[in-house]
């Protein structure tokens, strides 16, 4: 309602219900109808307790009328307040003997005066509160606090239930897992290669690859993987010129030897690098 004139209201601090239409009238920086009423009351320059509610209602209604003549759209709560004050005024002026039970017009007027007084009182204490010396503004704490070294002693916790369920779950998982794929022992290329390099380093003459490999095949089940990995490693090493390899015919044993320049020079044309030819 009055956001555009509040110098210190930032966007998030604007008081407006989200469902209200955007701002309509410049009510001169008032924080709502009660605030406007308070200002009008202040203009009467009397104790709020002795304020003439009737006069106040007139002033407020006049203000609203003026705004309407200017075709200014007023926030809903101003209009609600205006309606309420018009009602209050009529009851104050024409005491209705058949008025409904409950609060009299005087009670309503007193209630309004009370609300004005309360708003003013909160304004005042808000000012006092903000005037207090504030931390990091007027007073300061230690700028360079010294850390208190925390020595943590872990206290391990676990419950018997944790323990038992962990046990049962593990055992059960294993016992019931009828389609268990046993973990395959797979040689990595690097492993095979390292093993080969170690061996080839010792053998200068043509040697059968199978011979090398068999030494590593602890279990027959591992023969295939070891063979595959080692062969791949061998090809890699041939490509790098570390090794020469040689196979007479398809499915024949594969021979390898350490590649040296002298050997390569002598046996030129024998095993072509990187191929299972000859």
């Amino acid at each position: 309602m009055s956001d555009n004139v509040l110098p210190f209201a930032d966007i998030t601090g604007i008081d407006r219900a989200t469902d209200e239409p955007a701002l309509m009238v410049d009510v001169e920086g008032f924080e709502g109808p009660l605030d406007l009423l308070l200002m009008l009351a202040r203009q009467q320059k009397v104790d709020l307790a002795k304020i003439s509610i009737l006069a106040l209602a007139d002033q407020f209604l006049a203000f609203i009328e003026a705004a309407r003549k200017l075709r200014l759209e007023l926030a809903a709560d101003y209009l609600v307040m205006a309606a309420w004050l018009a009602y209050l005024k009529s009851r104050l002026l024409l005491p209705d003997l058949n008025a409904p039970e409950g609060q009299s017009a005087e009670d309503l007027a007193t209630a309004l005066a009370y609300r004005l007084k309360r708003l003013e009182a909160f304004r005042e204490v808000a000012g006092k509160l903000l005037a207090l010396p504030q931390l990091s503004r007027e007073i300061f704490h230690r700028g360079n606090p010294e850390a208190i070294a925390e020595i943590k002693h872990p206290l391990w916790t676990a419950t018997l239930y944790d323990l038992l369920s962990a046990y049962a779950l593990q055992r059960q998982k294993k016992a019931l897992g009828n389609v268990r794929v046993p973990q395959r022992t797979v040689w990595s290329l690097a492993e095979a290669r390292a093993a080969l390099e170690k061996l080839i380093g010792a053998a200068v003459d043509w040697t059968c690859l199978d011979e090398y490999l068999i030494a590593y095949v602890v279990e027959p089940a591992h023969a295939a993987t070891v063979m595959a990995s080692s062969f791949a490693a061998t090809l890699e090493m041939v490509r790098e010129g570390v090794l020469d390899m040689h196979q007479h015919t398809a499915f024949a044993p594969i021979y390898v030897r350490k590649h040296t320049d002298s050997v390569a020079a002598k046996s030129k044309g024998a095993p072509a690098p990187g191929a299972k030819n000859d």
Partner: protein
Amino acid sequence: MARAAERRLIAPDTEPEGRPEELRLLEALLFASAEPLDEKTLAHRLPAGVDVADALKRLQVEYATRGVNLVRVAGKWTFRTASDLAWLMTHEAVQPRKLSRAGIETLAVIAYHQPVTRMEIEEVRGVMMSRGTIDVLLETGWIRPRGRRKAPGRPITYGTTETFLSHFGLESLNDLPGLDELKGSGLLDARLPAGFTVPVPSDDPALRDDEDPLEPGDLDFGLAPPPERVEKG
């Protein structure tokens, strides 16, 4: 302890060597920490048998005239620069976030009227409140949602935090400026006329009879308080 009291009577400052060791220990602990420490924590860290409350009072007297004072905020103890030296400390001063007028008033209503619901704040201020106002205050860490009022709609109740007391250098809510006048005038009572019991603001984390605890989701709104800022309640 009797000995210490006696010593104090003789001369607090003339014999620095005779100064009880506990004052040194307290000094060290309180100087080291940027955060206020409560007496229980201090007692825990000091040798058994030290009258912490008494030692703190002595230390407070010793430092009363210094550039650094021992003060009590939110029931805890901390050293802070003397408030009359604000002019000197401009270099350290940080520009605090400027609260809007709505924010300031809302903070005051929460501080003096807590625990209080949004509707009650609106009632006092006579204006609908945008969500942003509460969000900004939550962001400062000065207020927290503390429960839900046992009333139709179960609105959230708000109260102030320890950070609030610490920021404004208040020992407790009783030190709120102008609180007595406000109480005396009956303006803290929402009902008319001023009731027999004078309501007082309370930031006691214990919920009141008309409050329910917050539910898990209650703290998940937008900018709202990071959990660690929400005091245990």
